[in-house]
């Protein structure tokens, strides 16, 4: 346990059992992009029983389409059913789980024993993965869930590498851990700020993210909570907004630790985000496993991730308990270095014309970059742009507008175009 499968080819070590790269998808389009850009598995939410009630979420038919699409790539789909259910949420659970099983979902990600036990009984072919909402932080608890018959556990975000190694050493169960994306600053499942502040139930998908708000810190007394302000006029307010997680440079350690699944957060994120993050981690995992002993992180991978980053990032708990430098004060948001400007629908090799669906404003003269699983990133200047009817445009102004222009190098459907933010 705790070692990845490997073999030696001549002098060279090769890792043969790669960890699963697990990507989020809020709808069918995002699912297809995630798989196409290299995810081994995708997690999605249904209409019920999952957190993120604002994510697009899938109907059963859409799930079936997603499963069949993923199958062509050898990928699989998991469904989040990770609410802590109230009595009133029990209705329809069995039928729902049976439907997931029927359409070929591989497993569910679940926090509440109600759903675990119902799944074992009603839909026994589904794998059961324990959600991070259970805040699993030690190997004895991992062992407990192993004995309960679970195939996999998703660790608490507070678990570091040393702890993961001990878990792997002590318990033979698949371990999934987050490698990239936004994080809860509280122990997951143990925060009800949202319930108190806005009457939205954080543990049933209603979280209003009050941890990202600003507060004032006071020292109080029996009579008054606000006797002494612990901030000066020029001080930033108290904040507890965490930087996003980014473990790209720790992928080698995660692979060597034998972690089974590396998870990217973000069912609410755009296809550009999913495509960018998935393709970078795909490259890193593949490069490391092909030649672990000569592997080096390339600067271009880091730059690539910054093109879609909504917030500054940090390794969180991976090595240590994070300090103030891993939090955001004052400016909680951050602009990615690039905008997603178009999705390639088609490319004509004869005429070198791309047919593109516009996703953000661009105009002739702009320098744009293309990327995708079949191509190496390249940049070029946009020349004349036409609409579907062949009318020349001064700019591509309308979201989802179909436009055409000349691109020198070959493109493929679902390649993406982005533009640097000035």
């Amino acid at each position, binding site marked *: 346990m705790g070692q990845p499968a490997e073999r030696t080819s001549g002098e060279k070590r090769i890792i043969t059992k790669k960890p699963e790269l697990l990507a989020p998808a809020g709808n069918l389009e995002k699912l297809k992009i995630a798989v196409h850009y290299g995810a081994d598995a995708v997690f999605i939410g249904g209409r019920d029983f999952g957190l993120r009630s604002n994510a697009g979420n899938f109907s059963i038919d859409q799930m079936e389409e997603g499963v069949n699409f993923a199958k062509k790539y050898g990928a699989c789909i998991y469904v989040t059913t990770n*609410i*802590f*259910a*109230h*009595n*009133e*949420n029990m209705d329809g659970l069995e039928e729902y789980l049976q439907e997931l099983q029927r359409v070929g979902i591989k497993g569910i990600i679940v926090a*509440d*024993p*109600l759903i675990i*036990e119902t799944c074992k009984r009603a839909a026994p072919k589904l794998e059961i993965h324990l959600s991070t909402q259970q*805040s699993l932080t*030690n*190997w*004895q*608890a991992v*062992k407990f*869930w192993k004995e309960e018959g679970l195939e996999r556990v998703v660790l608490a975000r*507070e678990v570091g590498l*040393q*702890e993961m190694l001990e878990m792997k050493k002590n318990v033979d169960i698949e371990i999934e851990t987050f490698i990239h994306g936004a994080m809860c*600053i*509280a*122990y997951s*499942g*143990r925060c*009800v700020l949202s*319930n*108190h*502040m806005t*009457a939205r139930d954080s*543990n*049933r998908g209603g979280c209003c993210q009050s941890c990202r*708000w600003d*507060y*004032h*810190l*006071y*020292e*109080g*007394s029996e*009579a*008054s*909570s*606000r006797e002494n302000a*612990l*901030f000066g006029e020029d*001080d*930033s307010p*108290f*904040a*507890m907004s*965490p930087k996003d997680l980014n473990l790209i440079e720790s992928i080698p350690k995660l692979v060597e630790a034998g972690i089974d699944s590396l998870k990217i957060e973000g069912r609410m994120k755009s296809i550009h985000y999913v495509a960018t993050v998935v393709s970078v981690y795909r490259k890193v995992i593949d490069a490391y496993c092909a030649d672990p002993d000569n592997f080096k992180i390339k600067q271009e991978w880091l730059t690539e991730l910054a093109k879609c980053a909504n917030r500054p990032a940090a390794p969180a*708990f991976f090595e240590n*308990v*994070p*300090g*103030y430098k891993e*939090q955001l*004060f004052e400016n909680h948001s951050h602009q990615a270095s690039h905008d997603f400007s178009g999705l390639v629908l088609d490319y004509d090799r004869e005429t070198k014309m791309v047919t593109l669906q516009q996703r953000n404003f661009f105009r002739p003269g702009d320098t744009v970059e293309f990327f995708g699983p079949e191509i190496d990133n390249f940049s070029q200047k946009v020349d004349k742009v036409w609409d579907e009817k062949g009318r020349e445009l001064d700019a591509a102004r309308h979201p989802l507008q179909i436009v055409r222009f000349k691109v020198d190098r070959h493109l493929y459907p679902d390649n993406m175009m982005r533009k640097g933010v000035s």
Partner: protein
Amino acid sequence: MTVKPELLVTPRSAEDIVPLIEAGADAFLIGEETYGLRLAGEFSRADIETAVKEAQGKAKVYVAMNALFHNEKLPLLHDYLAFLGNTGVDGVVFGDPAVIMAAREAAPDLPLHWSTETTGTNWYTVNYWGRKGAARAVLARELNLDAVVEIKENADIAVEIQVHGMTCMFQSKRTLLGNYMEFQGKNLKVEGRSKDRTLFLHDPERDYDYPVWEDENGTHIMSPKDVCMIDELDELMDAEIDSFKIDGILKSSEYLTQMTRLYREAVDLYAQNEDSYFDKKEEFLERAKALQPESRSVDTGFFFKETVY
């Protein structure tokens, strides 16, 4: 006559035990920060022994082991549980399944109470933990009264709820107060962050003040008001909820004794004569309010509040 629930109180120190029993407490929840979360006071092993002795034959003593344990604390659990078993405590409160695993070996006869605070939200899951060995489940504070009653109706094990005091809204492993002070450039050692410091986060939009502190389990943020159900005990007692908790965290011993006495009176009165309780319940509420610190008003938590999602 209506069945009386256990009146469970969280004392600040071993010296509180005798006066609280005299005030009407039936049970105590005590412990130390290494194992337990958000305790009113710190009880060493010697203090636990004292508490058990003082309470012998008069009240029960439960010990909190409801922290989220990381690997480094696992080696401690076995020994602590063995100690608690030998000391004769009446139960151990846990949230982390690691405690079940350790208790099977170290103290198989010790009753276990399941309490994760936020995740005890349906009767099926309550019974699940019952099958795993729990004799009692502590329900989430974010449930409404109907949900609490429905859980009790379907529960195979005892059900505990909090009827009074502040409730926890948030726990982070991060040292958020220290991080903020460090970010501001203030010296950590000078700036205390413990419960004794009475720090508050102020939310300007809602004009609420949330108590906040740091300890070895991380940063804790508490509700802006105290739950107070003293005038709404009837439905809870009709439902035969097994235990009513008064949480004494961030309160004085004197407050706790007086509040316990008041709940004792209210519970006894309803059990004895429902009409008299209804006649007097407004007065109970007024007397409870009069005991509150100026900065802490009361409400009914989530008992009469709906949440959406």
